[in-house]
């Protein structure tokens, strides 16, 4: 990969300067909810930002079979780099390895491959960490009350990332002697969040805290809370949409905080892919190559630090 | 009754009873069939003939009674059980599969195959031989059955029955959809079969046929045997009718009332053409006139009336009713203009089988019983009930689903539909197919009465006798061409037959 020349570690400006045009293939899951929609839009926007990037976007899909053939197509086309947000990390490992073997650097975004050899660089949101952050925040707020009722509104339950988030959440709660009393799963959509939340509220007459995995479905969750006329609890969101942050900033809502899960991962992926393909390095590192693995932080956004995060938040 | 000196019967049925939901279809029926005979089963519509034969072919399990096969009591718990014994059945309703070829239909269920792999050539050859034996060597075994006419489907059905190693063939109204020539052919086959010692149970409403082909007759009335094993030659027709209906029926066509010379033309067909079927067809029907279409099966008579009715879109020409030209290919325009069609295949084209009788009767008129789209079911039911009573439809329960009626009564529903509508042109495609003697006479009278009231009527029938007896004018049709147009009294059965035979030979 990278040809014979040594990567150059230019300045930020230097990295931004137009280089030789590179073709980058991008494939991600179907943009069937706000966060993924934002991921896609951000990636495409990033591609358009650079005059020297020709971004090929494959149909968003939740079908590993189709996504594999998209990557195969990128390999055939001899793209310079591939940014891959797999529907399922393990399922796309084999074809990503094939791409790497064919000399095409793969940037793995968000859902990690099962083999380190399958990606030149991996850039991840931290799902477990996200759950942990939410759990820790709730622990801080409720830690003195071991009988507190904690509820969880998960996303698509069949996805491994949901399991990771829930595990992180449960583990963090355990440290302060709490556990999840009521758990429902939605589907990352507004309607799903509304439906799940209204059922949850009916099932649990008294709640102290709710963690909702996704701010997009959170819009529905808040509608349900509003309908039920409940406000005895506080809520922590997930992903970090602009809408959610505005609410946190406003301070009137039960939504007190949200855990950021960067929606710019794929855009970062496109940037890194460009650097790799153009043999550039990351400007703020001394290291002359783009690192192998980048795990993005999952910070908790509250009314105190919201202004810092609002600009990068996604509009769902 | 079984005579002591006769050999042991092949099939013996004792006291069979069968109930469907609310209907006691059979109440103790007896029957004995001997090898090599043609045993006719007669009875009015709904008497239970089809139900009886369905118990013999393993479709229905009887509630009571015994069945003996070659002297042994048997239980026929599935069609396969009956087929295995050697009982093959041609059902009243066409039992072929449109998507399969002729040969595949014939061998359905007992395919010519080795461990599941078909012998297509062998099956086709055997099928061809069978078809030849049936006098239809021209029917290609590899042709898809969906493209065949009803009559040809019937042939396939018969070939299927013959393809099994059978000792008894049950034919439930096989001649209903056949014309005179085809019936002759059928009889030839039946005689050949009985000559080989195969028994045939034959069901038909055509008394003449029974006289020609039958050896003995059993009669069922209201689910009970009223006669068993009468010898055909010793039983006068009037006696048979009495046994079936419990009364005397003068099975004659009603007298014609001459159509007044100044009667207006109601239906005017001018240069009508349906590509691939018929072309340049012109004729008129006047108020009060009955026009009969005679011809062989497949002569495109149905296509002609369907095109007049707008069910098929004419490629040229026009149809007008009372001077008003109809939109081609629009049934609703035809209905609005006052044309009614009683279609050839009543179950698939005429009735909604799971809907009650009254809704089937009012299918063309229910809008009339509505104000602003809101149905007045009371008025609708009332109108339907009137016709049900006038036509003596049985059962006279307007809420009974059409599915549970016998064939003849289903036919009456279709007539009732257009009687409620009050059309000025009535197209009747095989109106007495499968209708019993009693009801037939009623339908004839009814058709005549309608004509007298000023309705212009076209009747298609495969029974030439019926066309000649009922119609004022006759069109003899062959392959979409009008061979002759004449007054009914100027031609006889032989005349028609000669014409069409010559026509089809040409």
């Amino acid at each position, binding site marked *: 990969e990278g040809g014979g020349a040594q990567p150059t570690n230019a300045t930020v400006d230097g990295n931004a300067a137009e280089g030789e045009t590179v073709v980058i293939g991008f494939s991600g899951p179907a943009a069937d909810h706000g966060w993924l929609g934002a991921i896609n839009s951000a990636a495409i926007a990033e591609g358009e930002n650079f005059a020297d990037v020709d971004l090929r976007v494959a149909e968003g899909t939740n079908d590993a079979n189709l996504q594999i053939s998209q990557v195969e197509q990128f390999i055939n086309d001899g793209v310079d780099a591939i940014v891959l947000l797999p529907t399922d990390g393990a399922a796309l490992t084999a074809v990503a390895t094939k791409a790497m073997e064919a000399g095409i650097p793969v940037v793995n975004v968000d859902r990690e491959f099962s083999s380190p050899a399958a990606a030149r660089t991996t850039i991840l949101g931290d799902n477990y960490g996200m759950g942990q952050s939410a759990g820790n925040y709730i622990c801080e707020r409720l830690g003195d009350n071991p009988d507190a009722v904690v509820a969880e509104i998960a996303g698509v339950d069949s996805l491994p990332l949901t399991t990771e988030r829930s595990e992180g959440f449960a583990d963090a709660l355990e440290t302060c002697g709490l556990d999840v009393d009521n758990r429902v799963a939605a*589907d990352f959509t507004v309607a799903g969040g509304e439906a799940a939340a209204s*059922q949850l509220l009916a099932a649990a007459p008294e709640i102290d805290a709710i963690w909702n995995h996704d701010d997009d479905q959170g819009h529905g969750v808040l509608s349900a809370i509003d309908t039920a006329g409940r406000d005895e609890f506080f809520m922590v969101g997930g992903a970090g949409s602009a809408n959610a942050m505005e609410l946190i900033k406003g301070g009137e809502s039960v939504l007190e905080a949200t855990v950021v899960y960067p929606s710019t991962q794929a855009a970062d992926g496109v940037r890194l892919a460009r650097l790799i393909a153009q043999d550039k390095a990351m400007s703020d590192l001394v290291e002359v190559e783009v690192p192998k693995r980048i795990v993005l932080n999952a910070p908790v956004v509250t009314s105190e630090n919201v202004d810092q995060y609002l600009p990068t938040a996604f509009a769902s | 009754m079984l005579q002591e000196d006769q050999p042991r019967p092949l099939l013996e049925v004792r006291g069979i009873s069968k109930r469907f*939901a609310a209907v006691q279809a059979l109440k103790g029926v007896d029957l004995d069939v001997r090898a090599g005979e043609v045993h006719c089963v007669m009875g009015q519509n709904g008497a239970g003939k089809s139900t009886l034969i369905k118990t013999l072919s393993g479709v229905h399990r009887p509630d009571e009674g015994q069945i003996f096969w070659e002297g042994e009591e048997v239980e026929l718990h599935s069609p396969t059980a009956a087929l295995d014994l050697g009982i093959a059945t041609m059902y009243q309703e066409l039992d072929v599969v449109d998507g399969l070829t002729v040969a595949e239909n014939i061998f359905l269920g007992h395919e010519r195959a080795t461990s599941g792999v078909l012998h297509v050539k062998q099956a086709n050859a055997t099928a061809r031989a069978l078809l030849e034996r049936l006098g239809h060597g021209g029917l290609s075994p590899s042709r898809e059955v969906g493209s065949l006419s009803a009559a040809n489907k019937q042939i396939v059905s018969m070939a299927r029955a013959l393809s099994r190693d059978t000792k008894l063939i049950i034919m439930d109204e096989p001649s209903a959809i056949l014309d005179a020539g085809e019936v002759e052919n059928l009889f030839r086959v039946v005689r050949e079969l009985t000559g080989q010692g195969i028994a045939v149970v034959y069901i038909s409403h055509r008394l003449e046929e029974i006289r020609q082909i039958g050896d003995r007759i059993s009669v069922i009335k209201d689910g009970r045997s009223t006669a068993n094993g009468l010898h055909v030659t010793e039983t006068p027709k009037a006696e048979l009718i009495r046994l079936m209906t419990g009364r005397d029926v003068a099975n004659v066509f009603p007298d014609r009332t001459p159509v007044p010379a100044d009667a207006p033309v109601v239906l005017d067909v001018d240069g009508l053409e349906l590509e691939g079927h018929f072309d340049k067809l012109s004729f008129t029907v006047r108020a009060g006139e009955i026009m009969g279409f005679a011809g062989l099966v497949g002569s495109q008579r149905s296509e002609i009336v369907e095109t007049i009715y707008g069910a098929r879109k004419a490629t040229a020409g026009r149809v007008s009713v009372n001077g008003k030209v109809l939109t081609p290919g629009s049934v609703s325009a035809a209905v*609005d203009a006052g044309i009614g069609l009683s279609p050839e295949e009543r179950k698939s084209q005429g009735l909604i089988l799971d809907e009650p009788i009254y*809704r089937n009767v009012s299918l063309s008129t229910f809008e009339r019983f*509505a104000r602003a789209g809101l149905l007045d079911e009371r008025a609708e039911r009332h109108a339907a009930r009137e016709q049900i009573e006038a036509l003596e439809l049985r059962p006279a329960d307007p809420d009974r689903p059409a599915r549970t009626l016998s064939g003849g009564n289903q036919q009456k529903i279709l007539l009732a539909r257009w009687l409620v509508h009050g059309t000025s042109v009535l197209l009747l495609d095989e109106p007495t197919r499968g209708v019993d003697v009693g009801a037939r006479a009623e339908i004839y009278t009814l058709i005549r009465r309608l004509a007298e009231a000023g309705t212009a009527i076209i009747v298609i029938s495969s029974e030439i006798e019926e066309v000649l007896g009922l119609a004022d004018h006759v069109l003899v049709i062959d392959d979409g061409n009008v061979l002759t147009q004449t007054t009914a009294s100027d031609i006889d059965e032989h005349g028609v037959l000669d014409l069409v035979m010559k026509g089809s030979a040409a």
Partner: protein
Amino acid sequence: MSEQKTPVAEQPSAQTTAPSPSGGSGGSALQSLFHGSSARSLGLVIALAAIFVIGIITTGDRFLSGDNMLVILRHASIIGVISIGVTFVITAGGIDLSVGSVMGLTTVVASLASVQMAATQSTWLLMVLVALAVGALAGLINGVIIAYGSVVAFIATLAMLVGARGLAEIISGRRTLLVTNTDFTGVMRADVLGIPVLVWIFALVAAAGWFLLNRTTFGRRTVAIGGNLEASRLAGIKVKRHVVSLYVLAGVTAAIAGLMMMGRTTSGTSTHGLLYELDAIAAVVVGGTLLAGGRGTIIGTVLGVLIFSTLTNVFTQNNMDTSVQALIKGAIIVLAVLLQQRFAVRKERKAKAKPIRA
């Protein structure tokens, strides 16, 4: 012979579905109407009651509380309205896979900034009108392709499912649009006589649907076409036109459901209504409408919707794992249909026991 095109599964039930004769003495139309479906509905009522009993046993009074009942009803209302439209389409022997997608599309279009702006300047009813127009148009396209293009309904509406979702994404730019018109949300989120407006809408649509199906020529045509399309055509019914109107009806109910969804979630997005088509069809068929057409029951559909929504509620009350929920739901779908059939058969048997001589 009539069995011909019935789906495989219909075979034995076809024998048992013959509506019971209402007695030789000629019961009233009303009587016979209820008779026909009541036996099947009884099975559903029992299934619903069983779920209630389980709910009460496992969660006690909380389950029976008025608030919880309203949660069940509110949840049922949106899918319920769609199911009413789908009932008509299925009764006529068709199917509509696009309702969920069309619903999503209507929410997106009606929540567009321009529409909301215009609505703020005039009246919130404008949003209603826009949604209904979008739904009707989508239904019209479905109907025309099916009736005049002779494309199988399954495929035509599958295409609409895919296409409408794509269009909704394009229009919304894949974002969730917020409904800011407070007049609209105010009305949709209000209570009338202690019952949410959404539930009222469901009740009204269901009542109107019942009336339309059972008391009008429109309903009669629908049943006739589903029972035997060719016979209906030959009897002079304008079959194609009617088929088009059925899909328009389904599109309109999808639009109404979309408006309810906008009220409930105060948002419009292309993901609204995802997979609702399957939920609606399941509710309709579990309710007793024949998938092959020719028999439809609004009461059954309402019961079917309530069964599913109560089930979800009981699951949540018991904090059940979602995968286990799926497993149980699958089993319950089958059981509900079996139960319903059992009752229809019993009814038939009873009719046999007291024979009526015609």
